[in-house]
């Protein structure tokens, strides 16, 4: 008979070392006595154990061991070793056999530990203590059933990494100073943890969120057993809440239907319906206050030009330069558009210029910000603004430059080269506009051949001229 002595608590390392040695010597579970705490009075019987090689176990078995070693049951190591032994001796899929008595028992231990961990995540309460150097320090006292203090550490560090906190339990303690986690010995219940007014506020919240008409203390206790109450300040209110509930409900049931004391706020109710922006300027303020869908842009770039313009030209989205200046069509493509408009005999100042998407989307490459096309979903997000905007401008004709603008105006994918020319844009609720689809000037900039570019540019100017005759 071999006696293995592991340290108090969840001794995962000790158990792992023991398993390696026992597996190396092919020691059957019946020949091992597991004890916890001080080394056995009789010491190890039999020859000294050599360190063994790692044992290969299915992942699920490893996970089960990690949890079950935290359990308070003194038999846990013996049970786990029986599992390991059987898995190593032909029953690789033992954990799938949920009806096996050993597996069933280990599953129950596993579940108990998981529940304990979950309840500690849930029911632990920090109290804020003033820190000598002006900051705040948070301290909690909690009494877990099992040896889970180290198992919960990752959760609290992850959640409260930016705070300084201490968790004290009878099974060990944790301290986090915003950089390092220190584990400490079992602690005594602190005499008094002073509460600040947040604790008072929390109590009020707890009382107020309770609905007396649904009182059901059994359901509450099933999820929040009494043993946890001592460390949760809000539970002090429970007895009074339960006691008062029937009378509160009775009072509600017996009360006469209320007669409203206030007059009907007719003006306010009528005003409520007038919430849409009432001018283009107001709409632009909304747009400028809003967050870009894809983070990065410096500012929103609203449209520009006179309300009532005969032609509104809709591009894709602001580029690098537009994003810096906050005005549409001022970059290279914008300059090309200005030149083309001039050539077509259209005064840029008399045209309303805007974009389907109001924020610049890009990827940073070194110092350069490389333009990224908006996705169909992003275009849809910006549609409400574009439609409302055009509703204020009321142009006779809307020109879509490129596929993104055409998508925004029609709500469907449009092939620009195939469908270029006049088109009806349905608008928001069928109250649409006469439209015209042509290429985006940035397309001209991207054409590699001089000759090709000149031809495309002439076609673009011709399109603009034709559009002007339709407006």
């Amino acid at each position: 008979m071999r006696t293995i002595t592991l340290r108090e608590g969840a001794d995962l390392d000790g158990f792992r070392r023991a398993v390696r040695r026992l597996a190396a010597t092919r020691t059957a579970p019946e020949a091992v006595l597991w004890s916890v705490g001080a080394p056995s009075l009789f010491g190890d019987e039999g020859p000294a154990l050599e360190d063994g090689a790692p044992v290969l176990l299915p992942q699920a078995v490893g996970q089960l061991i990690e949890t079950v070693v935290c359990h308070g049951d003194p038999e846990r190591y013996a049970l786990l070793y029986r599992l390991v032994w059987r898995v190593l001796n032909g029953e690789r899929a033992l954990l799938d056999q949920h009806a096996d008595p050993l597996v069933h028992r280990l599953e129950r231990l596993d579940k108990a530990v998981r529940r304990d961990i979950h309840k500690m995540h849930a029911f632990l309460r920090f109290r804020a203590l003033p820190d000598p150097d002006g900051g705040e320090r948070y301290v909690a006292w909690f009494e877990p059933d099992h040896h889970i203090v180290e198992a919960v550490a990752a959760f609290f560090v992850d959640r409260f990494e930016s705070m300084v906190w201490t968790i004290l339990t009878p099974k060990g303690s944790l301290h986090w100073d915003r950089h390092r986690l220190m584990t400490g010995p079992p602690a005594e219940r602190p005499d008094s943890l002073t509460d600040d007014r947040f604790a008072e506020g929390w109590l009020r919240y707890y009382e107020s969120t309770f609905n007396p008409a649904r009182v059901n203390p059994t359901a509450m206790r099933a999820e929040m057993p009494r043993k946890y109450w001592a460390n949760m300040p809000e539970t002090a209110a429970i007895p009074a809440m339960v006691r008062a509930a029937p009378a509160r409900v009775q009072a509600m049931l017996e009360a006469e239907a209320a007669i409203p004391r206030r007059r009907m706020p007719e003006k306010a109710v009528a005003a409520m319906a007038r919430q849409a922006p009432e001018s283009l300027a107001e709409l632009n303020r909304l747009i400028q206050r809003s967050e870009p869908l894809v983070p990065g842009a410096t500012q929103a770039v609203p449209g520009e030009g006179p309300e009532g313009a005969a032609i509104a030209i809709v591009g894709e989205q602001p580029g690098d330069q537009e994003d810096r200046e906050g005005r549409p069509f001022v970059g290279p493509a914008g300059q090309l558009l200005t030149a083309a408009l001039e050539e077509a005999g259209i005064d840029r100042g008399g045209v309303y210029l805007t974009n389907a998407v109001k924020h610049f989307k890009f990827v940073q490459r070194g110092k350069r910000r490389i333009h990224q096309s908006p996705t169909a979903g992003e275009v849809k997000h910006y549609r409400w603004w574009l439609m409302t905007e055009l509703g204020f401008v009321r142009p006779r004709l809307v020109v879509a430059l490129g596929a993104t603008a055409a998508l925004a105006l029609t709500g469907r994918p449009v092939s620009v080269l195939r469908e270029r020319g006049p088109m009806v844009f349905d608008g928001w609720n069928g109250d649409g506009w006469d439209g015209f689809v042509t290429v985006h000037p940035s397309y001209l900039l991207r054409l590699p051949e001089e000759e090709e570019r000149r031809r495309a540019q002439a076609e673009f100017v011709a399109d603009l001229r034709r559009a002007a005759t339709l407006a």
Partner: protein
Amino acid sequence: MDDALIEKLGILADAAKYDASCASSGAKPRSGGKEGLGSTTGAGICHAYTPDGRCVSLLKILLTNHCLFDCVYCINRRSSNVRRARFTVAEVVDLTLGFYKRNCIEGLFLSSGIIRSPDHTMEQMMLVARTLRRDHGFAGYIHLKTIPEASPWLIEQAGLWADRLSINLELPTDHSLKAFAPEKNGGTIKAVMGQVNERIVEAKEERRRFSPAGQSTQLIVGADDATDRSVLETSGTLYQRYGLRRVYYSAFSPIPEASSVLPVKPPPLQRENRLYQADWLLRYYGFTVEEIASGGEGGMLDLGIDPKLAWALKNRERFPVDVNRADREMLLRVPGLGARAVDKILSARRHTRLRMEDLGRLSNGLRRARPFLIAANYHPVGGLTDRLDLRQRLVTPSSQLSLF
């Protein structure tokens, strides 16, 4: 935190408590790191339970309980004499951070009465979420109750910051909505659900963040005369058409300052419970609304037994089911066997022929399942499912005879 703020908190938590949802689930795991605060774990945590047995997971409050709407079932309707209060954006932010740091909550569930206009209200709510996320690096859970009458762009901005958006339909039929909530419109609500669903699906495809934990809604049960069947039909449609994560059922509960149009009565809690069970069958057990409704009478579920047992008792010819042979779909229909137990049965029976004592280790509901099962060493004698008193036997636990 001063007395005035505590007083406001009391009023605005009281005003928010008729919303059943408090879930903090469905967010992807993330954390705020050294500069921010908080984390989400995916599963959600209940930090306390109140004596009504309900979970306290999020700080569930209204921004204000002033409201221009006049929905008769609601304590905050404009014609109610209830005490009114209003938080500032900064106050809600401070409360959320303060309670979060004390590990009292998973995050914030913010809703509001309609003040000034739906847009103004929605913008204030969105600002709370934006301030928490951007100015405080708050990585906890945020659930925003969307105001369906607000402009689409505001709802879309809200989705950039929230983990979950919800829009309460409140009443299952357009007819009831018209009668009890004159400012609401079923069409508008569903249009927004459609819009939000479209944005969530797009964002997923385009790997953007937009209400990553989906959307949910609430139906009030027992205020109008809708049957369980019509409630479930509404839910079925909402799940299918708008990809909702959850439909919450809230038993119409007595409120102080009740309206004369809708007198109060004790909340139909049992009915609410049966609807949740039916909802589960709808989503995870492969039942149709028709099948569930057929277990009851006149479109109402049987209050005495759960809807799965009710269906089984009316479809006895499909039982008993052999646990060693039946497919998953049929095992899921056995009363007393939950989805987990069924999965354990499926994996365990690959290794061994299951006997009754094995099943006792796989499921906690064996007492109810027994008459509907065949195991390796067990066949219900004399066709237990044929017994007329089967319902009775399953409802009241059989008591042992004792020698005197």
